[in-house]
């Protein structure tokens, strides 16, 4: 009884077992983070909106900020039987406005990428693949059967980014 779940902005979704698909639609500067444990087939996705939480605000969705999102999703996955040491990651999004040669205060995309990559590194989770930057919108899918990660550029093609369940895959991309 698989499910097809959409991961909205700031949301975390975790599923266990084959037959589930997690999808983040319309990633602009946001980052979709896919995490997968090949052994238990626990799959998780979080739709990160901003790099850093404001410590003075309670009641925020932990998935909204890179610094709180990664620990929160790992915790949820572990509570569903995953092992933190087996998790592998792939990320997509972090797009920027089309401003050639102009530095911008609106560099949320780049700051999000950096914050997510740092948070993964701090948790010791290998980043298997990433598709970040540029000025395109993206849709990200994670299939729980084998950790297949697909990225579609809005207005373009869908392509395979990684198979996180492939235990023979190399140890990851340089962050």
């Amino acid at each position, binding site marked *: 009884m698989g499910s097809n779940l959409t991961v909205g*902005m700031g949301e975390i979704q975790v599923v266990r077992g084959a037959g589930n698909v997690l999808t983040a639609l*319309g990633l*602009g500067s946001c980052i979709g983070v896919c995490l997968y444990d090949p052994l238990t087939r626990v799959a998780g996705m979080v739709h990160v*909106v901003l790099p850093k939480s404001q410590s003075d605000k309670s009641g925020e969705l932990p998935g909204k900020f890179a610094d709180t999102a990664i620990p929160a999703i790992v915790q949820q996955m572990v509570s569903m039987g995953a092992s933190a040491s087996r998790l592998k990651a792939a990320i997509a999004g972090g*797009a920027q*406005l*089309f401003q050639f040669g102009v530095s911008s*205060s*609106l560099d949320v995309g780049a700051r999000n990428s950096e914050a997510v990559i740092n948070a993964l590194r701090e948790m010791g989770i290998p980043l298997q693949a990433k598709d970040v930057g540029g000025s395109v919108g993206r849709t990200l899918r994670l299939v729980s059967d084998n950790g297949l990660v697909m990225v579609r550029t809005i207005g373009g093609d869908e392509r395979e980014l990684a198979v996180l369940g492939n235990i023979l895959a190399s140890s990851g991309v340089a962050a």
Partner: protein
Amino acid sequence: MNTTGTPEKLQQLVQTIRDLPALPEVVVRVMRLAEDPRSDAQSIARVIATDQAMAARVLKLANSAFYGLPRRVSTLSEAVVILGFRTIKNLAIAASTFELLNREIAGYWLQRGELWRHSLACAIGAQLIAQRVRLSVAEEAFVAGLLHDIGKVAINLFVREQFDQIMEHALRERIPFVEAEQAVLGFNHAIAGALIAEKWNLPPSLVSVIRYHHQPSQMHEPETLVSVVHLADILSITLGIGIGGDGLYYTLEGGTLAMFGLEQPDIDALCGQIVDYMAQAADLQIQPEVAVR
């Protein structure tokens, strides 16, 4: 490649806009009444009540998170009294444009509902910016943000035919998508939107916002409201809310942030707020399929 639009194409655009639905008579009457100092709440409520679908949407919007009413408003006259004539007028305009904005806009790779979501995010963003910088136009900002991209509905089919050319042109010339539309088609969604707004006899301030929402500085007499919507649009695009194949191929005009005294932490906070309000407005994003007309 010929990059100037042909006169025939412009003719077709004018015809397309002519074929779009008129603003419902109810809205036209509400707009007139709202500007008339002799009007009272009862008369405005009575006019809205003549269109049931409109009445239901106005109440739904009035009870949504944006207006933060302490209790549920159940009648139109109550809504008019509590929210005021100007807000009700704007709600009526918003309610009447839902059908158009909720369409699939295939030319921009926008599925059904995506342009409405983007418009709603921009409306929320514009209102938040206006409040943050203490502008008196917060009320207008919501409806201006909602309508800014209405022209995409009209040029949808033209863009669909030449999307690849427009994108290639943007990348080659290193210009934003809206400027590439202009170069390839001879018009763009902002110009088309202003034509629609004029056809609907919307106030000149709204026509200007729609016309200049990508280039506020090109106005003869710059208006703050236009820059508010420009920034709100850019934030909504950056967040990816209802973005299509044109993606983030847009720019923020230099000086916009300085004009409002906004810095990076303010921008992050605004983005966070837009996301929160959009989550609260989930029920406005999936509206029942009611034909307004």
